[in-house]
């Protein structure tokens, strides 16, 4: 790929992804570990999992989210380091401070990943030069990153993964489709193993194959996400950078093609909305105290119900029961709904005051779980893991 682009037309988005971030921090802080396989995560003697593996460890096949015991078998000589999240957060802040020096338009995806809008028309600088500058500045911190430079978030993200570690991959305007075409469909966030298998069944293996489909076939194969996946396979993605600044609330709503009526349907959609919103809250690093539920009936009348909690939360396990209670206040089973919405406002820092008597231990544990799920989604795509509906007892099933 030609990296000396004389003039860049249109938007320029960088996706900066730190290389083996946690493991690199450990190697930075422990010089004697540099060049050696380092695994951050739970002890291989217990039931822990790998949080991160250095590139040296990855050569042995060690991957994130792998059971520690398995990783220990693959790489018996690895250095095992317990996770020090406060330290990672500290270095993450240093990295994000670098981004902040470049542009205010930064969308953090997690501690080690962000999108930056460096559109030359407003930024006045060659995007490739900016990427090189960021990479050297990260080098100076003793860390390493890979960067994708493209015209959209979707392509930039795929590009940053193209040459890792310490790569800069530029996809100049107009070359998106050619860049994507040879890549396997799984390169696109949102296409997991089972979807890929379904696509392979009809001969669609690369993003080029996918891009060549007509919208109707894509919809048939991929469901409601078909249109957007098809567009992204063609290199089209107009989503703006979401900086989360001055945000007063986070909300999501869903309009149904046919009205929904049953408790199961309505509650299922409400759960999905709560999960979407809470996941976005966590990604933005905020929590909220005020919960709002919005309904639109078949006759287009709209109703909302709102409640303010004692403390802020970013957890579905805490907000979902509130959402369902509010729902019950404004909706009776059988009434048709054409729209359902859920939002959280009163946003504050998500820090949680712990309780001396452990009254919050469930929430704390749930928070750990959700952060783990967020990490998996961040790495493998939104659809890679989902939370099932609560399991019902056999008696309930009989009645239902």
């Amino acid at each position, binding site marked *: 790929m030609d990296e000396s682009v004389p003039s860049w037309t249109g938007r320029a988005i960088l996706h900066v992804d730190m290389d083996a971030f946690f493991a690199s921090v450990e190697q930075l802080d422990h010089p004697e570990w540099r060049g050696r396989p380092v695994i951050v995560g739970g002890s291989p003697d217990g039931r822990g999992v790998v949080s991160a593996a250095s590139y040296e460890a990855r050569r042995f096949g060690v991957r994130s989210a792998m059971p520690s015991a398995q990783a220990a078998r693959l790489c018996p000589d690895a250095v095992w380091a317990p996770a020090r999240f*406060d330290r990672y957060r500290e270095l993450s802040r240093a990295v994000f401070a670098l981004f902040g020096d470049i542009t205010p338009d930064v969308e953090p995806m997690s501690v080690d990943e962000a999108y930056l809008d460096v559109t030359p028309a407003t930024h006045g600088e060659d995007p490739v030069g900016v990427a090189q500058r960021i990479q050297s500045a990260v080098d100076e911190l003793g860390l390493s990153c890979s960067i994708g430079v493209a015209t959209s978030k979707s392509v930039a993200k795929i590009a940053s993964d193209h040459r890792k570690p310490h790569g800069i991959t530029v996809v100049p305007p107009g070359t998106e489709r050619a860049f994507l075409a040879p890549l396997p469909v799984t390169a696109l966030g949102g296409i997991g193993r089972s979807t890929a298998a379904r696509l392979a069944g009809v001969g669609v293996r690369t993003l080029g194959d996918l891009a060549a489909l007509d919208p109707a076939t894509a919809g048939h194969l991929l469901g409601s996400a078909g249109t957007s996946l098809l567009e992204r396979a063609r290199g089209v993605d107009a989503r703006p950078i979401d900086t989360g600044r001055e945000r007063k609330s986070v909300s999501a709503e869903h309009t149904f093609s046919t009205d929904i009526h049953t408790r199961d349907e309505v509650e299922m959609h409400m759960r999905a909305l709560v999960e979407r919103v809470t996941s976005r809250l966590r990604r933005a690093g*905020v*929590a909220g105290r005020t919960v709002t539920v919005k309904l639109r009936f078949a006759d287009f009348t709209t109703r909302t119900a709102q409640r303010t909690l004692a403390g802020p939360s*970013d957890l579905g396990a805490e907000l979902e029961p509130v959402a369902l209670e509010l729902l019950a206040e404004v909706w009776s089973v059988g009434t048709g709904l054409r729209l359902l919405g859920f939002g959280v406002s009163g946003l504050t*820092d998500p820090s*949680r005051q*712990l309780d*001396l008597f452990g009254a919050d231990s469930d929430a704390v544990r749930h928070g750990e779980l959700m952060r783990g799920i967020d990490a998996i989604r961040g790495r493998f795509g939104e659809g890679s893991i989902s939370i099932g509906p609560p399991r019902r007892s056999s008696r309930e099933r009989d009645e239902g």
Partner: protein
Amino acid sequence: MKVSVARGELLDALSVVAKGLSSRTTLPILSGIHVSAHGEDLILQSTDLEISIKTSTRAKVEKPGQSVLPGRLLNDIVRSLPEAAVSIDVGETGEAKVVCGTSSFSMRTLSADDFPKFPEVSAETTLSVPSDAFAGIVHRVSKAVSRDETRPILTGVLVVMDGSDLRMVATDSYRLCLSEIAVGGLSGQMEVVVPGRALEDVARLATNAEALSVGVSENQVIFSFGATTFVSRRIEGSFPNYRQLIPKEVETKVEVDRGELLDAIKRVSLMAQHNAPIRLSVAGDEHTLSLGAQTQDVGEAHEDLQVAITGQDVEIAFNHAYLLDGVSVAEGEKIAIEIVSPLKPGLLKVAGSEAFVYLLMPVRLG
């Protein structure tokens, strides 16, 4: 009833019973002050059914009797009067006349028969405590009293008299404060949970008396000081086992000048907005305790204090207001901060003493 009393003394007595006036409008009689005149005494009473207060003052009783006068109004009137003799005259019609110099007021009264009888409590145990020492420990623990009525036991303070120690413990489930003093001449033992608000009132009212006595009966606790008797209901239920919560072994101990720490917390807290915590980092090599706070989209603050450290380096985050409360009520030049681990409660003590313990649960960073 007809009685005459010096304005200053009447106002003092009214200020005492004003603490017991009820704000509940459903029972109008409770917004009144029961006034009775006998022999050479004017006796005032008030109650909100949770606490009952009785106090007396010397008076010239021309005609003995009793009545119930509107509490707030009587207070406001007497407060506004010049320093002279005040006469209160309640006639057959049930109207009260309050006269002082050239000012005169008349007001409706309520029947003394309808006023709740002052609880006759026979204390099983009684102890006497210097009132300034009592007020000191009440002040220290009262910040940690819970305001959340859903767990009534935590709205109270555990008062323990054990041998020669007077100990109070309060917790709102985020922090726990224990303060104790050695009181000479104590005999006997008692353990009672008293509503926090009542205890604060007693501490404030008793400052004029040298000592106060505390008596405990099955359902009530009685404080007597000067001419005043203050009865409060006890809070039922068992208070959390505080001994079990206080860590026996810690990993890190920091000794720091209290004034410096207090000022640093106040400064750094300015950047702990919107629920953001204050972070404490202990670095043994550099002998520093660093305080930091950061509010998204606003900014951050940082301050290093030179301190004496034993044990491991650690980082822990606290709610800044709770931390400030603990440091501000600790009495001593040096404070010891003791930490087990970032998600276990931290301890604030007065260095070299076990008489004050402020246990504070950390904040888990989001």
